[in-house]
C-alpha cells in the first residue's frame, strides 16, 4: 500500500461524509429554482444535523436494543460503502476486501436493519414503511446487481475500481448495453433514495411515506445518523453512477498527487450536474401510487436485463 493510495481512500471517505449533506442542499436549491420559489440555505442540512445531535433522544417504550443499534449500523454500512466506490481514484486498498457484489450486500444490510428497526416499535406506520421498503428493495437490488453485472461482463472483473479503470481508459467507445443499464440505474437511484416518483422526501402524510415512515420514531442523534446515512446513500449512488457511466476524470493508473487533485474539482462538477438533473427529473415527475412502484422497478429490472442481452448479443 503506497501513501497515495491511503490518501486517496481517506480523501474519498472524508469527502463523502462532508459533502453528502451539501449535495442534498444543492438538490433542494435546484428544485426551488425550478419551482420558482426561494430555497433554504445550502448549509441547512448541516445545521439540522447539528441541532439533532444536541437533542435528547426520545425512545419508545416498546423499543429493543435493535432500535438503538440500527442507526449506527446503517451509518456504518454507508461509510464502508463510500470506501468501496471510486469517486476520486481507482487505487483503493480497501476494495481488495470488498467488491461490487459486497457493495450491493452492504446496501442490503442497511436496508434490512432499517426495516427491522422500523418493525421494532410495533406501530402501524413503521411496519408499513418496512414492508414497502423491502418490496422496493427486492426489485431494486437485482436491478442494481444486473447493472453492475453488465459492467463486470464488459470489464471481466467485479472489483469496482477495476471496472472504472477499464471503462475510463477505453477510447470514447459507446457501449449500447451501458445506455440501457444507465436508464435502469437512474430508475433504481430514484427508487432506492426515496425520491419522486417513488417517494416524496418532504411529505408529512404518513400513509404515503416509505423511507420517512421507517425513521418516524427516531429523534436526536439517532435521527441525525439516519439522515446523514440517507444523504450518504444518495452520494454513494451518484458516485456509483459516475464510476460506471461517467468514469473520466477519476485518477486512474498508478495515480499521482496531481491527478488526484485534479479529480476533486471534476467530481464537484459531476455532482453539480447530477444534482441539477435529479432535481429536474423530480420536478417533471409526479409521485406514483405505491401499488405502481413495483411496475416502475420491474421496468428498471427489465432494462438492466435488456442491457445484459444487448451486451451478449452485440458484444458491446
Amino acid at each position, binding site marked *: 500500500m503506497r501513501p497515495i493510495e491511503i490518501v486517496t481512500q481517506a480523501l474519498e471517505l472524508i469527502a463523502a461524509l462532508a459533502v453528502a449533506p451539501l449535495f442534498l442542499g444543492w438538490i433542494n436549491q435546484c428544485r426551488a429554482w425550478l419551482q420558482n420559489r426561494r430555497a433554504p440555505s445550502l448549509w441547512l442540512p448541516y445545521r439540522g444535523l447539528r441541532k439533532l445531535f444536541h437533542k435528547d433522544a426520545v425512545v419508545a417504550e416498546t423499543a429493543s436494543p435493535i432500535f438503538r443499534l440500527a442507526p449506527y449500523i446503517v451509518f456504518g454500512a454507508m461509510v464502508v460503502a463510500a470506501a468501496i466506490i471510486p469517486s476520486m481514484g481507482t487505487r483503493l486498498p480497501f476494495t481488495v476486501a*470488498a467488491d461490487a457484489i459486497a457493495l450491493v450486500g452492504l446496501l*442490503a444490510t442497511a436496508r434490512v436493519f432499517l426495516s427491522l428497526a422500523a418493525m421494532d416499535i410495533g406501530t402501524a406506520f413503521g411496519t408499513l414503511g418496512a414492508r414497502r421498503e423491502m418490496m422496493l428493495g427486492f426489485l431494486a437490488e*437485482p436491478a442494481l446487481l444486473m447493472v453492475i453485472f453488465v459492467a463486470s461482463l464488459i470489464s471481466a472483473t467485479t472489483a469496482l475500481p477495476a471496472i472504472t479503470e477499464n471503462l475510463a481508459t477505453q477510447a470514447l467507445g459507446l457501449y449500447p448495453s451501458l445506455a440501457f443499464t444507465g436508464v435502469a440505474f437512474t430508475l433504481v437511484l430514484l427508487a432506492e433514495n426515496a425520491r419522486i416518483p417513488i417517494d416524496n422526501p418532504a411529505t408529512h402524510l404518513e400513509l404515503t411515506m416509505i423511507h420517512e415512515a421507517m425513521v418516524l420514531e427516531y429523534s436526536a442523534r439517532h435521527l441525525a445518523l439516519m439522515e446523514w446515512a440517507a444523504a450518504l446513500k444518495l452520494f454513494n449512488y451518484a458516485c456509483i453512477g459516475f464510476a460506471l457511466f461517467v468514469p473520466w476524470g477519476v485518477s486512474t493508473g498508478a495515480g499521482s498527487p496531481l491527478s488526484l487533485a485534479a479529480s476533486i474539482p471534476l467530481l464537484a462538477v459531476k455532482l453539480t450536474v447530477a444534482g441539477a438533473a435529479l432535481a429536474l427529473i423530480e420536478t417533471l415527475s409526479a409521485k406514483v401510487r405505491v401499488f405502481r412502484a413495483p411496475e416502475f422497478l420491474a421496468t428498471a429490472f427489465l432494462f438492466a436485463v435488456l442491457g445484459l442481452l444487448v451486451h451478449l448479443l452485440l458484444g458491446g
Partner: protein
Amino acid sequence: MPGALLDVAANEPSDDLGGGGVLLGAQPLEECLFSGINQDRESGSAVFEAQEGSRGVCRWVASYYNSMRIQVAPSVMPDFQSSLSVCLALIALWGLIGLAGLLRPASLRFAGRTLFPLGALCGVALAAVAAVSLALPPEESVLPVGLPELPMHLRRDALTSLFLFLLGVASAGISVFAAGYFRRGRGTSAGLMCLQYHLFLASMGLVLLANDAYTFMVAWETMALSSYFLVTTEHGIAEIRRAGFLYLLIAHVGAIGILLSFGVMQGGSWQFTFEAMRHAHLAPHWAAAAFLLALFGFGAKAGLVPLHVWLPEAHPAAPSPVSALMSGVMLKTAIYGVLRVSFDLLGQPQWWWGLVALAAGLFSALYGVVFAAVQTDMKRLLAWSSIENIGIIFTGIGLAMVFNGVGMHSLAALALIAALYHSLNHALMKSLLFLGTGAVLHSTGERNLGRLGGLIHRMPWVAWLTLVGALAMSGLPPLNGFVSEWLLLQSFLFAQEVPRSFVSMLLPLGAALVALAAALAAYVMVKFFGVIFLGQPREPGLARAHDAGMLERLGLAWLAGGCLVLGLLPTQVIGSLRIVVQQLSGATLPNVAAPWWLLVPLPGGRASYSAPVFLIALAGVVVLTVFVVHRLYHRRVRRAAPWDCGFGGLNARMQDTAEGFGQPIRHIFGALMAVKRELPSPFDPQPRYRVTVGDRLWQSLYVPLGGLVQRVADAFAWLQQGRIATYLLYSFVTLIVLLALML
C-alpha cells in the same frame, strides 16, 4: 513414507524399503509384487494391488517403470484404524443409543439428559473424523452383511467426508437442542422417539457411506421410514397424519425413481456395486435416462418443484428439532445422491443435463421464495424457504455440469464449490431458524405468525441467536450466506464464455433470477424475524413467554457459531471443498497465492473478498461512531410512548400482520398462487377477513393425478368379487398358466 520414490531393482526382495515406512503395517512389498496383476511388459509399467490386509483394507498401488523406480501411493492411514471404520463405529453408536432409548421408554429425563447429549457428542466426533479424513485418499470396505451375492460395500471418499461433516455438525447442535426440548406431549413416548431419531441419523450416515445400490436403498428406506415416524410424532392430530402420509408417498415415488436409475446404471453387468456402475459404459441416451431418473428421485427427496408438495406439509407437522434435521441434513443427502450419480457413477455429465438441473433449480428457487413470502405459519415459511435454497444449490450443480460438459473445468469447479458451500451454509442456517421456531413454539404455544410479536423482550437469547440465522439466510456480508451467493454469482459471470451461443446468452439471465431470489430471501427473513420477535405482542398470552433453557441455548449457539465461522473463514473452507471437487469431477481451481484472510477464487485480479477485514471495517466504523457521538455530544435517552399521530388508542393489533407483510408479493406474483379471499362487507354483523394462499401445482397436477390413480384402481376393483370361490379360481388359473410356462 507414503508417496516416496524408491529405487528397487526389478526382482530384488523387499528387505530394503527405505526404513520400512512403506509397509504401514500391512503386507511386505514382495508379497504385493508377486500378487501383481495387469502386468504390462511392453509398455514397461505394471500395476500391483495388494490383497486385503489384516488391518482393514490395505490397498495401494505401485507403479513399476523401466527405470525401476517405484512410487508408492498407499491409501491407508499409518497407525490406527481407517477413518471409514471410525465413521461406521460412530454410526453404529447412534443406533445403539437409539436402542438404549427403549430401555426406559417413558422417561423423559433419561432420553433428554443422557441419550441425546451422547448422540450430540457422537455427532461432534463424526464431524471431527470427517474433517480430518477429507484430505485422505478414498477407503473402501466390505461388510459380511447383506444378500448372499451382494454384501454391504462401503466407501468413504472426500464427498462422503464433506457430507458426514455436515451431518455431524448440524446434528450435534440439533441433538443438544432436542435434549432440552422434548416435553411430555401426546403421541410417541420419549424413548421411542429417541430410537427413531438416532435411527434417522444412523441411516443418513449409512446413505453417505454406501458403495452399492443395495446398501444405499436400505439406508434410504430406513431414512424415509424413521423420519415418517418422527414427522407423525403427534399422530393424534389428523392433519399431521395426513402430512406424514403425503411425505411417505412422495418419498416412495422418489425411491422408485432412484431404484430405476440404479437399474439403468448397472448397464447389463447385473452387478449393483457402485464400482461396477463406474466402469459400465452406457450409451448416451441410457446415461441420460439414468440421470433424469436420478434427478426425479433425488429431487423428490430434496424438494424440487413440482415434487415439493410434501415439504410445506411435513416440516410444520414434525417437532422442531426433527424439522431442523430434515430440512438441514436430509435434503442434503439428496444433493449428495445427485452429485454421486451424475459426477461419479455416470462419469462425465453431459452439458445439457446441467441445463435441466439449472432450469429446475431456478424455478424452484423463485417458486419457493415467492410462496415463503406469503405464509402465515412460521414453520411453513421456513419450509418454503428450504425449497428456495435447494433450488439455488441445484442451480450451482447445473452450472457446474454445463461448464464441465463444454470443457471449462476450473469454472465447473467454482460452480460446484459454490453449490457445496451453500449446502453447508443452509444446513446450519436453516437448522438454527427451525430450532428458534421450536423455542418460540414451546414458549408461546403459537405457530401462527398472527399471534406472535415482541418476543425479543421476553426471549432475548433465542431472538439474538435467531437474528444471526436470519441475517445469514438473507445473504448479508460478512456471514456465510453471502459467501456462497458471491461464489455463485462469480461463476455466472463467466457463463458468457461458454462456446454454445444460445446457452451463453441464457446463462447470465440465470444470474438475474438468482439475484431476485436472494433479494426476496431477505424480504422473507425480515418478515420472519420482524413479525415474531419485534414489535408489540399481538396476544396478551405472550407475556407469559419464557426464554429457552440452557441446553437449547447451547444448541442454538453452536449453530450460530458455525454460521460465523463459515462466514469469516471462507478461504479455509474452500481449501477443503477443492479437494472434494477434485476427487469428484477431476476439475480444480487454479492455485492463487493469497493471505489466509483473503478469498481469491480465480487468478487474474478478477474478484476478491475478505470477510474478516470487512467485519473489522464495519464493526470499527460502528464502534467509532458510537464513541465519537457519545464523546462529542451526549447519550441521554428518554422513554416515551410510540408516535401515534395524535390519534391515541393505537394497539398491538394495528401492526402489520403476516398477511399484510406478504401482500406486495401476493399482488405481484398472484398468478402463481391460488388465492382465496373472503372480504368483509359493511353490512356484516360480524365482519371477517380471510385470505388463503394455495399452491396452484397441487390443484393442477396432483389432484388430477390422484383422481386418475383412483379411477384406475376403481377399474380394477371388479377383480374383488368378495366370494371365496372366485379367489380360488384366480389361484387355480395362475397355477395352470405358470405350469404351462414352465413346461
